[in-house]
């Protein structure tokens, strides 16, 4: 999956309009990024990319780009 396509998946998970998320966006500023969104993200990564997100690494993610970095190995260049 391309990084762009995965961004669209994150938007759908957070119920955000398509194209609204940018890698530089800060998670703290996204109202929809709550504890249930975190679990939804973990499930999304597991289901679409077959990857188990590391809890510590996810807690340290500050931006949308950090989320993409967590799954970089599974994203097509």
């Amino acid at each position, binding site marked *: 999956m391309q990084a762009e396509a995965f961004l669209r998946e994150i938007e759908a*998970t957070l119920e955000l309009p398509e194209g609204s998320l940018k890698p530089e966006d800060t998670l703290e500023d996204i109202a929809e990024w709550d504890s249930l969104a975190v679990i939804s993200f973990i499930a999304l990564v597991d289901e679409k990319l077959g990857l*188990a997100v590391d809890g510590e690494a996810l*807690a340290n993610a500050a931006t949308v780009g950090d989320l993409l970095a967590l799954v970089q190995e599974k994203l097509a260049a």
Partner: protein
Amino acid sequence: MTAPFNPMSLAGRRVLVTGASSGIGRAVAQLVAQLDGTVVAAGRDAGRLAATVESLAGAGHEAVAFDLGEIDAIPPFVQKLSAEGGALAGIAHCAGIQIGKPVRVTDQAFMDQMFRINVESGIALARGLRQRGVAVPGASLVLLSSVSALVGQASNVVYCASKGAVLAATKALAVELMRDKIRVNAVLPALVETEMAERFRATMTEAQWQGYAAQYPMGIGRPEDIANAVAFLLSDAARWINGIGLVIDGGVLAG
């Protein structure tokens, strides 16, 4: 010398254990073998099943690779096991899945998968066990429900619903299968140290995990804690126990 009396002895009993390649299923298989029962270990992964069978005490155990997602194939599968290897004295249905998802990302495919593996497979195993000649009189079916059937958990709605359905199915099957001389009971574990729990833990920070574990006054459970209860329900020591859901949670729900 006569063997010491053991009311939980499973000597001469052939027991099908699903989900036997890991976690609670593997612990149940090991205990059934220690109680002198003969184990038919079923699961999807032939390699890991073989490792389970190799770990069992005694002889005569077998591994059978089978995908419980094929619901209509389950009754003939059980019939074939019985026809080829002898009637079954019990089934411990330990296979199951847990995937946490908030309702906001829950769709039909996800719900269908969870209910197929967690609910429908157990009902199909009951159908298989009650076929003519498959079960010995007094056979026992033990299903794995969960404390999630009793206590709501955010982001776990489909799992909770599936385990609640297992508990309801247990009671209905107990009533229906009495005429077939088959008992049906469920165990309701809280969190147990298994690979399934390890995956859950890995998605948390250490601090989050510590907060979660703090809810357990007697600590997180071990697979053997559940296996002991399953073996009891399989045995004749539980002859007069039918249609129950046995909570095994280290006192979590008591408080």
